[in-house]
């Protein structure tokens, strides 16, 4: 799953949605690709969640956070003076 790129997954999902919307499939096939689609969608969501979490972690770094505020204050002061 790790090697599956997000974009590829998304593209596959799109195909699946189209096929399902086409309505030409047998119930079995529909179910099968639906299942695949759901899994893909979940995988993608997880990937996004992971990315989001990662970004949030990166962004919400204790030291980083503070410093940025400190800098901002300092910066604003220095530009004021």
């Amino acid at each position, binding site marked *: 799953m790790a090697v599956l790129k*997000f974009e590829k997954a*998304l593209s596959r*999902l*799109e195909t*699946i*949605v189209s*096929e*399902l*919307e086409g*309505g030409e*499939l047998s*119930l079995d096939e*529909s*179910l099968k690709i*639906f299942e695949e*689609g*759901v899994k893909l*969608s979940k995988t*993608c*969501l997880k990937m*996004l969640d992971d*990315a*989001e979490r990662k*970004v*949030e972690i*990166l*962004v919400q770094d204790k030291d980083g956070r503070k410093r*940025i505020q400190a*800098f901002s204050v300092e*910066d604003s002061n*220095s530009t004021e003076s």
Partner: protein
Amino acid sequence: MCLSNSSHVPGLFPSLLTVSALTRQIRSTLEQNFPSLWVEGEISNLRCPSSGHRYFTLKDQSSQIRAVLFRSQVERLKFVLQDGLEVFVLGRVSVYEPRGDYQLLLEALEPKGIGALQLAFLQLKAKLEAEGLFEPARKKSLPQYPQRIGLVTSPVGAAIHDLLTIMHRRWPFAQVLIAPVAVQGDEAVGQIVGAIQALNELGELDVLIVGRGGGSLEDLWAFNEECVVRAIASSRIPVVSAVGHETDVTLSDLAADCRAPTPSAAAELVVPDCFTVRHHLGHHQVRLERSMRSMIAARTVRVQVQTGRLPEPRLMLGKFVQQVDDLERQLYVRMKHWCRNLQMRLLSHQSAIWERNPLYEIHRQQRALIERGTRLVRGISGCILAKRHQTELWVSQLNQLSPLAVLARGYSIVHSLRDGKVVKKSTDVSAGESVRARLHEGELICLVQRTHPPS
């Protein structure tokens, strides 16, 4: 001489006379009648030939007579003859035969009005004055502190005693060399001149005192003698004259470099007062020391002032410390500034990255994903629903075609239990067999009691 010779020749021819005889008679007559006699008159036409005799005319308002003063007499004169001089003369009348001139042969000559000495004095004074002998410019200054003093005076008498006494009292330092001389009389002039010259020759004398005690004009006369005056004037050693009393001024006084009225006065004049000199020396020493000390003091003040102007080391170095401090501060400020600059750049990058963080994209993708999920579910639901509709359609048609409706009308279907076949003819079963009859509602299991053949 010639005249005196002819005066001894007697006259022999009274009637016929030769010029010479007559002249001789006239001469003897005159000489006999006019023995030595005093005549008063004024000198004029004075001639001074090299013979040393003096020829002149003696005249008054209306008359004149020739006069001769022979050399021996001339030399005895204290004063000098000159035209216009009113004189009394003592002489005999005589004739100068070669010319037939009568004349006075003078034995003595006195100035009229003043004494001969007086006249001589005045005449010599005038002469020497004319020569510039008395010029102040000629006068040498006296040494202030003479060491060796020459005395030209009489070694005896009160004068030298007083002089020596005063001199030693005032100036014990002085060495006195006495050149003893007669100060009057015939020898005086020569001795005085000799002494002056001798002392000059000796040298090493600082000053000469030439003089004597008081006396009459005659007594003092040696100091009016020309050679004495000249000796004084030409002395290389300064000469102080000290002749007679205050009122008597001799030519020596005039010629001397300095005149003291008396020998005692000369002593005071020539030597300084020892006490004064000591005082003077002491004063000099005071001035020496004072000026030396004040010089040292002044220099000391100058040095001190300059030393005081040397800067305080701390102040001198303070400038440099300040320079270093200033540079260090700048260094610090610049470095801080530089760090801050870098920080600002970094922060701007950081915020740019922050601003472009992938959350937005993630959220967008999330939304897209959700939308797709919705479509997915909708798709499958639609699919299933369609199939259900179709199925239900067929089921309803099936139900419409249900054969069970026949049964509902009272028909039933009988199956042989033995072979399960539908029993369509009575012969299909035998009595005693069981059959099942399917009704509209429910079934019956029936025992065949009998069979009836088709009719």
